[in-house]
């Protein structure tokens, strides 16, 4: 499903954010990526979404070479991927409902269906009672949950989550990863970047360990 072939990435000349990273994620896999701060986890996820382009190397997602996709065709790729980023990327001038609904609007889902699905997604992350507020009126953990709801609302084939539980209490964190696990069971490929050892210990089957841009361990517990 996701193949990275000898990926190198350099933002600024002396340092390499990623060096020679190669791995395959098969359909239905559930991967954790971990590693110290600044080791290149976010860079990796952004590349899968083609937000940044590798300095060298090829990325194949769902059979397509991501690097070669035209600017105005990327939306096709991104519609198959649900993602939560560390900075949440919420639309602060839109209400909570609309922030989730936008994913369905862009693909033209009918209004009734939107209401149903958005409500479900918000209920799962326990935010349905704040549906008509603005993201700026949410606590930070609530904003993170909103980002999660948006990522899962369209049953994506691939789910990328970058530190999705960094602002949540352990109980909620467990619930969220359980949710991801369920989505995974329904066939989605999931990649989660996290620092939370408890979560990895509990849920981790396949773990990638990044250190200073290098993939130093691939584990299957």
């Amino acid at each position: 499903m996701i193949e990275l072939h000898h990926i190198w990435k350099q933002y600024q000349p002396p340092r390499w954010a990623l060096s020679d990273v190669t791995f395959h994620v098969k359909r239905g896999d559930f991967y954790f990526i971990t590693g110290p701060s600044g080791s290149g986890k976010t860079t990796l996820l952004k590349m899968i979404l083609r937000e940044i382009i590798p300095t060298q190397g090829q990325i194949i997602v769902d059979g397509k070479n991501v690097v070669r996709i035209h600017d105005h065709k990327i939306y096709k790729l991104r519609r198959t991927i649900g993602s939560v980023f560390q900075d949440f990327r919420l639309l602060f001038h839109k209400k909570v409902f609309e922030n989730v609904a936008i994913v369905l609007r862009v693909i033209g889902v009918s209004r009734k269906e939107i209401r149903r699905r958005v409500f479900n997604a918000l209920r799962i992350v326990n935010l349905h009672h704040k549906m008509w507020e603005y993201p700026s009126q949410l606590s930070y953990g609530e904003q993170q949950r909103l980002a999660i709801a948006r990522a899962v609302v369209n049953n994506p084939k691939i789910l990328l989550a970058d530190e999705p539980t960094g602002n949540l209490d352990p109980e909620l964190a467990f619930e969220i990863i359980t949710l991801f696990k369920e989505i995974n069971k329904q066939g989605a490929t999931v990649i989660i970047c996290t620092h939370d050892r408890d979560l990895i210990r509990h849920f981790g089957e396949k773990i990638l360990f990044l250190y200073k841009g290098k993939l130093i361990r691939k584990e299957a517990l």
Partner: protein
Amino acid sequence: MIIQKLKYFLKETLRNLWQYRIRNFFSITIICLSFLIFGVFLSLSNNLHYTAQQLSKSMMIIFFLEKNLPEDQRSLVEEKLKGSSLIETFQFISPEQALEEFQNNFPELRRIIENLRVNPFPSSFEATITEENISSSETLTFIQEMKEMKGVEDIQFNRDWVEKMQSLSRLAQAVGFFLGGILVLASFFIISSVIKLNVFARKEEIVILRFVGATNTFIRIPFLMEGTILGILGGLVSLLLIFFLIKFFPLYLGASLGVFNELINFRYLSLSQIIMLIAIGAFIGFSGSLSSLARFLKV
């Protein structure tokens, strides 16, 4: 499907206009004032055009007749004038009328006239030429023909005056194309800049929309509609302002301007100009949004 999308875009646009109301308020202010400048210029140029028209209407040829010309010869000249398509109107002026007119037109020379013992003016025909023929060559040949006619002693074809008129109209045109051009261009640049600033301020939003899988069209439409609406609103408000200005400007001056009253009796914009102004607003808003969106539709 399409109707649902259209409805969504419209709602979205209106919602955004409201969400960014402070920013939009200032943007519309800027747009409106730019259009005001543009509109005031349009109105002034309307006025100039009208005045120039009025002036060229009074463009005249005077056919001086020989002294003591018999009645039948005079009517021959009259027939000839009546028959020509170049002549719009004509009028017989007796020596007495000529003297009176002269006294009215040149009160400064009153003294000289009074010193005269005999009336020096001959009788004449004063003819106005249709506007489109004022500087045509046909007019010259017609005048040549008339000059050779019996009974016509001399023809006053005021070349000097025509030249002055032509200069004036050239000046008006120059001012129109150049100064006006500057004002208009300036207005347009201002409006388009403000629209661009609006889009820049919301680049994050564009990035996030692309992130959730929106097509470029989906992202563009509300921005384009917003730009267009801002342009149109700015135009409409400025039309309102211009209307009030034109209404109250003469009041402010009072009626004491005498001869120059006509010059400042501003005419409101014509319907086609109003439509043009609004269309321009829409166009600038649209194209300004479009061009500034481009750079954000890459990531």
